[in-house]
Structure formats: C-alpha cells, structure tokens
C-alpha cells in the first residue's frame, strides 16, 4: 500500500480507472491590443485530468512567467471565456461532461483574498452553509475540525488582517474545501517563499488533497522542483518556435510528465531519485530557456 493510500479515507470501492474529470479541449484565447490587433495568448491548448483510481490528485501546470498560466486558471475557473474551445467538467454520472461554469472550480488566488469583515471561522462556515448547503452546526464543526487539523484553531476568532501570510494561505485553501468542490486551483502557491516554507506548503497541499478522495488540486506554478515534488502529473506549458528559434505567440501544452508511471509520485524521498533530477534538469536547462 502506498503512502497516499494509507491516508485516503474516501470510498476506494468506487473505482473508475482513467475516466476524464476535467478536459481542456482545444482552447484558444486572444487578447485585443491597443491598436485593435489580436494577440493569441493560448493556442489549441488541450489536456485532460483523469480519475486515478478515485484518489485525490495533484496536477501542476508548469511554465515560465508571462506565458499565460493565469489566463488558463481564469478560463478553467470560468472567470473568463475562451475565444474558442471548451472546458468540460464531469457531471455526477461517469463519462457525462458539460461546460464548466462559475463556481464549479475553486480558486486559491495568489494574494489569498478572504472576507476581511468575517472572522477566520466565519470565512469557512459561511461558504459551507451558503454553497455546500450544510447545516450551520455541521458547517461550524467541520470548519473547526479543519482549523484544528491545520494548526489554526487558536486563530479561529481572529480577523483575517491579523493572520500571517502562511496562515492566510491555509485559511484560503480550507475555505475552498468547505464548499466540497472537486477541483481547486492554486495560483503560484510557492511564490516568494523560502525553502522551508515551500516544504511546508508542499506538505500542506498533500495533506489537504488527502482529506477526501474527490479532491483534485491544479497547481499553477513556475517552480520546477516544487511542482515535481508535489504532483502526480505535470503539464509543461510552452510555445512553439519558428525556424530562427524564436517563440511563436500562443502557449500550449508542450509535454506531459506522468509521475505515476515514472514511479515518482507519492514518494516521500522523491528528490533523492535520479529520475527526478533528470526530469528537473530536462525542464530547467533544456525546455525552459527555449520558451
């Protein structure tokens, strides 16, 4: 039994192997420039997040700064519409999909916005009541359990302005969990953190992902090492190059790293594996500089 299987508490009996949960289908996104011309940011972007034995999973979309990662986030979360293409999300029935709509996918934004006029506890309880339709008492109990598990119990009655950056990040993630969403996108969760804090965030994400088998985390990041350490699958975002070696506009998925079949996923000592170093080097020295 793997490390992850030990902690998963969800229904392992309902296994649907490799059933697509979220599909990004041929998505293009153009932005209008001041001179009226169109600038393609995303071009024929396609990938699919599939169910892995009904377990939680962590998928990273990795790419250098300015390539369009946040645009992908906004399109997947239905905050923006693609110029063409579809984002399809699974319905309750297997293999039945529909277009994504606002509220289907949770987002933990980079600056961790919270409702500043609500206590930390109420920031968790309110979405539980309003969105997950939990009974007030149940929502409160669940929120307190989360806060206790993630060392925020003492801060339950604090105002968000009284929290540190790390505490705020945890509350923002837990707030999304309270809505019982299947997908949660984390926008640059490792940005601006020191190595120790990065390790803490990686452990936090793994820990939270394991709270329920239905959780799927999509991490948008430019941090190669962290993405490799935390993910099951990595989609490398990049641009095609012309004959002169110059990048053409419009990002798309250049490569997929399936860390499960590579035998790297779920390993606590992943960073010591030779294949880990190889992949990191490949991305860092070979692929990233060309993007």
């Amino acid at each position: 039994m793997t490390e992850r299987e030990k902690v998963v508490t969800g229904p392992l009996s309902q296994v649907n192997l490799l059933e697509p949960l979220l599909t990004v289908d041929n998505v293009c996104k153009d932005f209008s420039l001041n001179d009226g011309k169109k600038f393609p940011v995303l071009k024929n972007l396609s990938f699919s997040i599939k169910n892995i034995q009904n377990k939680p999973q962590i998928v990273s979309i990795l790419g250098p700064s300015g390539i369009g990662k946040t645009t992908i986030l906004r399109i997947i979360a239905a905050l923006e519409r693609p110029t063409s293409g579809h984002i399809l999300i699974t319905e309750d029935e297997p293999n039945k999909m529909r277009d994504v709509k606002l509220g289907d996918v949770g987002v933990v934004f980079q600056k961790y916005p919270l409702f500043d006029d609500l206590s930390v506890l109420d920031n968790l309880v309110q979405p539980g009541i309003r969105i997950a339709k939990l009974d007030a008492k149940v929502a409160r109990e669940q929120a307190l359990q989360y806060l206790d598990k993630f060392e925020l119990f003492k801060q339950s009655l604090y105002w968000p302005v009284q929290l540190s950056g790390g505490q705020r990040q945890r509350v923002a993630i837990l707030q999304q969990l309270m809505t019982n969403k299947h997908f949660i996108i984390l926008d640059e969760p490792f940005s601006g953190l020191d190595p120790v804090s990065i390790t803490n965030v990686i452990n936090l994400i793994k820990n939270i992902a394991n709270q329920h088998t239905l959780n799927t985390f999509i991490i948008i990041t430019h941090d190669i090492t962290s993405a490799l350490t935390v993910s099951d699958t990595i989609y490398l975002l990049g641009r095609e190059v012309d004959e002169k070696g110059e990048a053409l506009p419009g990002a798309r998925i250049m490569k997929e790293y399936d860390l499960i079949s590579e035998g790297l996923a779920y390993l606590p000592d992943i960073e010591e594996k030779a294949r880990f170093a190889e992949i990191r080097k490949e991305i860092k020295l070979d692929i990233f500089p060309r993007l």
Partner: protein
Amino acid sequence: MDSNIEITSTKEKTSPLLEAFRVYGEVSTFVRSNLIAIWVLLFLGLWLLSVALRKSMAETMTSTELLDNWLYNLVRPFPSPSEVTTALYNMWAKHQLLSHVWSTLKLNVIGLIYSSIISLVISYLSVIPIFKPFNSFVKLLRYIPFIGFTLIFFSLFTIGWPTKVAMLTTGMTFFLVTSMTDVINSIPRMKYELAKVLGYNDWQVFYNVVVRPTLPQMIDMVAQNAAIGWIMITSIETYSRNEKGIGTQLYAYYSTNNLPEVYALLLIIGFIALLEDSLFSFLKRFLFPYSVIAERG
C-alpha cells in the same frame, strides 16, 4: 561573549521632542497629549496677542492710518475671549441659544440620515450596469450651483422646514454619492472573483463583497459629509430667516457687525462637529472592530 570586546551602541537616540518633528516620528501618548495642549495654548496665545495688538494700534494710530495698515486689518475681526464668552452667555440667557442650536442640529441629523440612505442606495446600485449612468449623473450634479435647485424646492414644498431638509439632503447627497461610489470602485476585483469562484450568486456577491465590507468606510464618508452639511446648513437656513437656527442667527449677527456673537456661534459649531466626529469614530470602532485593526496595519 568575550569580555574584552568593546561594544559601542550605534542605536540612534532621539529626544521625544525631536521625534515630534520627524516624518512618522514615534511619540508617546503623553507627548501626543502635550502636543495637543501646546497647540491649544498657541491658538489661545495668538488670539490674545491679536486682541492686544488691535487695542494698542487703535489707541496709538489715527483712523486713516488704521485703514491702510495691513496688520490692523488682519487682527481687526477678532473679538477678545471675554467678549466671546459674554456674547455666549447673553445669547443663552436672553436669545434662546439652545433652541436655535437644537433646530440646526435636528436639521443636520435629519438631512444626514436622508442623504445617507439615498446615497447608499444610489452608490450600491452602481455595481449594476443599468444604474451606472444614473450614478454618474448624480455625481455630476455636485457642480451645479445651489441656486439651481432652490426654485424647484420652493415650488415643491412650502418655504420653511421641508424646503430646508430637502435642500440639505440634496446638497449632501451629491457629495456622498461621489465619495461612496469611490469606496465601491476601490474594491479589488479579486474579492468579487473570490465570491464568484466560491459559487456565490449575484445577491450573495452584492451583499458579501459590496455592501457588508464597505460599511466601515461608509461611516467615514458620512462623518465627512456631516461636516460638509454644517457648511451648507448656515446658508440654507438663511433662506427662511424668520425661523430658528444657528444659520439665521449667524446671518443676523454678521449683518449687524456683532462679531463676538458670530465667533461664539462658530465655536458652538466647532464643538458640535467634534462631538459628531467622536460619535462616528466610536460607532466605527464598536460596530466594525476589524476595520480599526486593518487601518493600524
């Protein structure tokens, strides 16, 4: 630590007085209170000095010389503190001062309540695109001279209390809508998006992102507008001079050159403004404690 090592403290030492002159200088509560006292004393000192100067110049110079003297013209309007105190006592004892103050205060509070409610509705509705042009139109009206509205009010209401309330409410609403809409416009887009990705519907976004979190700032705006109201109120009250009010009294005393009474009334307005400011500040701290913590950083 090696005891042979000589340590020289490079910590900058500044006196509390010097700190008071530095940008963002850190002064204790004791120093801060004393600084307020110093300013009050300075104000009183300057007042007494100008009165003494006026008297001395009046005694030593001829009328023609006084007319051309800029210093005399500068200090001439200031009555002495004792003259102001006497005027205050006379107005209280003989001229129903309290009744005039009550009338103006009532007008100020009622105008403030009406304008706050109207402005809150107009500015909150600005987040709904169809109402945005109406909001912009109301904001533009603050440039229109007051006289433009008086005829409308005179034809709509009887001259007197209803007209005064309508004029004050309208005047304050134009400014309140402008400042309240600015507060709403400053809500970061990320806050709207957070509510949307959580799955909140339009009304939930409206209440949780637009209405509830901006209430503390709205109190600030109302407090600021209460002050604007006091500026308007004195001129509004002069439209019906046979009624009670500080404005009518100010006009009457000013036209008859009773400057001690004028300054006494101005002091009363200052005192009421101080009370109103303290009340709004207390309300904000009491109802929205997080906003005070956020402001302190």
